[in-house]
């Protein structure tokens, strides 16, 4: 994860990138990483599959929901002058 952040540091810490784009990129980076970190922690602490299933549900929501919501809400609230696609 450290290597990935180092390789993409120019993008991740850019001040020119729009906030929404940065949010998407950081969200993907963190949730993808947590999908490896959280199960490792659960296995080490012997919390059991039940706890792991619940934590995975939370991560699943965090990882999946933002992008479709942003795209669909952006399409719905787009400027009236924009004849995008249709």
């Amino acid at each position: 994860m450290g290597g990935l952040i180092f390789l993409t540091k120019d993008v991740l810490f850019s001040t020119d990138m729009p906030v929404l784009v940065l949010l998407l990129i950081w969200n993907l980076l963190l949730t993808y990483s947590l999908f490896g970190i959280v199960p490792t922690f659960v296995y080490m602490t012997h919390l059991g599959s039940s706890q792991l299933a619940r934590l995975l549900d939370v991560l699943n929501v965090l990882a999946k929901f933002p992008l479709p919501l942003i795209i669909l809400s952006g399409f719905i609230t787009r400027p009236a002058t924009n004849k995008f696609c249709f």
Partner: protein
Amino acid sequence: MSCLEIFYVALPALHAIGALLAMGLSFGCDTGRAEQTARRPYALPNGLPGTTSFNTAFPWDEGFEFENHTWNPFALIFVFEWLTAGFALRPLQYYFDHTRLAQAWLIWISAGHLVFIAWTFTNSGGICPTMLAIVTASFFMSGVVCVYTLYYPSALDEQGDETPASEAKLLMRAADENYRDKDGRVWKIPRSITMLRRRFVGNDEEQDPQGDEQGEVYQAEAIEEYEDIQGVIFRYAEYCITAPLLFLAVLCLMVVEAPAWLFLTGYWLLVTCNAIGIALHASFVFSRSEEKPEGGGLAPFVFKFFFAGPWWVFVFILFFMMKQEKKTDQKKTGREGAGGILPSTSRACCRRPGCACWPRWAGSSS
């Protein structure tokens, strides 16, 4: 009906609505026909002229239109939501007949793939075989998960009932089919879970006494344990299949002139890493289990999933790209034998004669 039960019922419906919305957008938004009029590229600080840069404009921004390219983010979101709606059907197996639910899930997957194929014919820019292969692989892997976690165990169970040696199984299933929890509610217990339980503990009557209170407590604990184990693998499989599609949607939306190998290797690496995670989880559960599962327990499904998913996708995409690039190089150089996969680009490829677009006639007119 509790809030959790309402959530279980509403979740697949919400995802299905999202899938239909995205499907409408992908059909209505012909990225192959649109011309780019406004794009605000963000040059990387360390980037060289002409190298990959980031597109910081969103589709709904003023003046933004897609460049002519064959990757449609809405089509990817449509596939993502469609597959997620199928996975969200799983909790309903406690309320409906799980065999019928598995069949409905398979029909849902097949219908989604047919709709996607129909979309490829409406997209005037054609479709790169990389995208077709990746989406096909995603639908296929969802089918594998459905078959090996719901449908196939049920079929095995029914076959086993026809043999005299399965009388013990029949007795156990009669007790397993309905389970009354501490609140008095009756749950339908999927045969996939009862079969997994039998694989772990066998049919020893002493271990699972029928009818008495101890047996019921043991049964409840066993069902909960195996549901959790199967549930974790199910969640891993769902994330393994659907999350890379979101990665591709971001990639084709944000990265200008992204080369095709970036899509291919990015998708393949994500799927492979997640599939390895599933295998590691199964190994961990197996190593910690006091009762070793007969026939390997979950291992056959896990390894079939692992080999059915990323590896054949890699070979399939490699074959398509090498074939198309070979044709392109032949047209450019007039000689045979030259070919490569790395130079392919995802955008505007249909404007180049002989480029890797499908159907081929869609790109030939531009």
